[in-house]
C-alpha cells in the first residue's frame, strides 16, 4: 500500500440550526453568503415551543429541517448572526441553533492551497 498524506483541518466548529421544514434553503444561502463552504440538511420532527403557543402553534410546522454547517472558528460569529437573522430566530417557534467546537475535520483541500499554507507555516 502506498503511503497517503491526510491534511487535517483544525480550528473548526459546527453550527447546527433546527428550523421549520421548508426554511433550510434561505438559511443555507445566508450562511454561504457569509462564507460558509457547504451545508448538510436532514429532516426531523420536533416539539417544544409549538405546544406552548396555543392556537398560534398551528402556524409552526412539526416537521423540521436540521442544518449542519462546518465553519472556521474565526467565522463562527459572523455566520451565527447571518443564520439568526435569515431564520428570524427571534420569533417564538421559528427554531434553535447552537455551536459545537470540533476537534478536527478533513475533506478535499486543493493541493496548491495545502502546499501554500504548509510553506507559510
Amino acid at each position, binding site marked *: 500500500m502506498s503511503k497517503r498524506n491526510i491534511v487535517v483541518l483544525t480550528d473548526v466548529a459546527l453550527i447546527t440550526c433546527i428550523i421549520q421544514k421548508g426554511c433550510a434553503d434561505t438559511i443555507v444561502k445566508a450562511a454561504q453568503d457569509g462564507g460558509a463552504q457547504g451545508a448538510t440538511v436532514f429532516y426531523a420532527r420536533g416539539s417544544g*415551543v409549538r405546544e406552548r403557543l396555543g392556537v*398560534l402553534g*398551528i*402556524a*409552526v410546522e412539526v416537521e423540521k429541517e436540521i442544518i449542519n454547517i462546518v465553519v472556521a472558528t474565526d467565522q463562527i*460569529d*459572523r455566520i451565527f*448572526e447571518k443564520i439568526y437573522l435569515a431564520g428570524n430566530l427571534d420569533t*417564538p417557534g*421559528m427554531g434553535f441553533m447552537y455551536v459545537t467546537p470540533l476537534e478536527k475535520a478533513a475533506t478535499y483541500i486543493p493541493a496548491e492551497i495545502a502546499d501554500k499554507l504548509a510553506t507559510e507555516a
Partner: protein
Amino acid sequence: MPIIKHIRFGAFVREITMHQEEISYNDLAPEIKQDQDGNDILYRPGKLKVRAIDVYRLVQPYFKVRLIDQLKAVLPLAIYLILFQLLILRQNVTDSWVITAGLMSVIFGLMFFIEGLKVGLMPFGETIGNILPSKARLATVLFIVFLLGIGVTFAEPAIGALKTAGAIVDVESAPYLYSLLNSWSEVLVLMVGMGVGLAAVLGTLRFIYGWSLKPLIYMSLIPTIGLTIYIMGDSELSKILGLAWDCGAVTTGPVTVPLVLSLGIGIATAAGKGRSSLSGFGIVTLASLFPIIAVQILAIFVSFAETPEMIISEAASISNLSSTLSWHETTPYVELLSGIRAIVPLVLFLMFILIYILKEKIKHPGTIAYGISLSVIGMIIFNVGLSYGLSKLGGQSGGLVPGAFTKIELISESPLYNFALGMTIALAFAWILGFGATLAEPALNALGMTVENLTNGAFRKKLLMHAVSFGVGCGIAIGIFKIIFSIPIAYIIIPGYLVAIVLTYFSTEEFVNIAWDSAGVTTGPVTVPLVLAMGLGFGEAVGAIEGFGILSMASIGPIISVMATGLWIQWKVNKRREREDELVESLEGVDS
C-alpha cells in the same frame, strides 16, 4: 491641538457587529420541585406570552407560503386567458370585477381548503390507515375503503363544476345529458363515488397481493369501451359520452388522491407488503377509469327509466315553477350548503370509524376542529369563486375564441381572421392553455420527482413534466377540434385507448404505472372547472350540442405521450448498453 482618542480594535469590531448578550441557560431552566414523599413534581410549561409583533411574524410566512402556492396555480392561467381575449380577439373582458373577485375567492378558498385538509383530515386518514388493518378483518377494511371512496368524491372541489356545467346544457338538444346533470345530479356524483370506491378497493388489493397493473388496465378498459360502443348505437344516449369520460378526470383531485393513498399504503404496509417503489401508483388510474363505467351504466339506466320527451316536458314545467328561487337556492346559501354537505359527512364517517370501530381517541381535537372548519370555509369560498370566477372566465373565453374563425353573435366583426388562420389560432390557444396549466400544476412536480428517483435518473423530472404537459396540450387541442367539427367522441377516444393499450403491452411495469397515473394527477381543482367551462362556452358558440369531452382528451393525451417517451428512453438505454457491450468486447479482443 487635536485630541487623539485610543480605541481598542476589538471594542470597535464589537461595536459595529451585533451585540451578543450572554445569559446562562441555568438561569432559565425550570427548577424541579419535590412533593412531601420526595417524588419529583412533573414540570408542565405554561403558555407563552406572545407580543403582537411575534404573532405577525409567525402568521405572515405561514400565510404567505400558502397564498403563493395557490396564486401560482391560478394567476398565470387567468392572465393568459385575459391577455388572449384582449390582444388576439380584441374583446374586453365583461364583468371583469366580478371575475377578479371570483378568482380571488378561488385562490383564498383553495388556500384555506388545502390547509384545512392537511391539518384536519389527513391525520384521520393516516391514523385509520395505520390502525385499521390490525383491528379489522380484510373484508371490513375493504368495505370501509369503499365507503371512503364515495365520501371523498363528494368532498372533491371540482365536482361542483359538474353541477355548474349542468345549468348551461340545453334540454331540447341533449335531454339525457340535461337529466343526468340536473334531476339525477346527486345520483351521478354517488355513482362516480362508487366507481372511485371500487377503484380504491381494487387498488388496495393490488398493494397487498402485488398484482401487475397491466391486466387491471386491460380488464377495466374492456367494459368501458364496450359500454361506449353500446351507447354510441343510441343517438340520444350518445350525447352523454363526453360527460361520462370527463367524470374520470374530475374525480382524482386534492382530496381523493392523498386520502385514498394514505389508507391504501397503510393497509399494504400492515399486510407486510407494499413500500415497494411502485406502491403509491395504480389507484389513481383505476379511480379515473371506473367512474366512466359507473356513469355509463347510470345513463343506460336513465334511458330505460325516462324517455327524452318526458325529460323535456319535465324540464319545461320546472323552469316555469322556478321563477322564484327559494332561499337555499340563492347565491351565498347554495354555496354554503354545498360546502357543508361536501365535508361534514366525510368527517363524520371518519370519526365514526375512528371512535366506534377502532376505539381510538381523537388526538389534538382542537387542531382537528380548526382544520375541519378551515376546510369547510375554504370549500364555501371556493364554490363561490368557482361560479363567479373560473366558470365565468372559462365560459367567456370559450365563447369568444370561435370568433377567430367563424361568425358568432358576440363579436360583430367576426370572423376576425380567415378560416385557416383563425382555426390555427384557436387550436394554438387550446394547446398553450393545456400545456401551461399542466406545467403549473404542483402535483406534477411531485410526480416528476418520484419518477426521477424511481428510474434512477433515466427519466428526468423535466422530461416527464414536458411529456405530460405536451400530452395534455394536444389533448385539449384535439378536444376543441372535436367540438368544432362535432366529431363523435367515441371516434377519438376508442382509437386513443387502443394505441394506449398497444403501448402498455410493450412498456415496462414502471412506465405503465407512471403514464396511466400522470393523467389523473394533472387535472386539479383549477384546471378542471376552467377547461369544462371553456369547452361548454366554446360548444355553445359554435352551436355544438355539448361541450364535454375535452377533459377526457386531456387524460388520454399524457398517457400516450408519457408511454411513448418511456419507450424511447428504454430504446436509448438499451442501445447505449449494446454499444458499451460491443466496446468491452472489442477491448477484450485487443487484450487477448
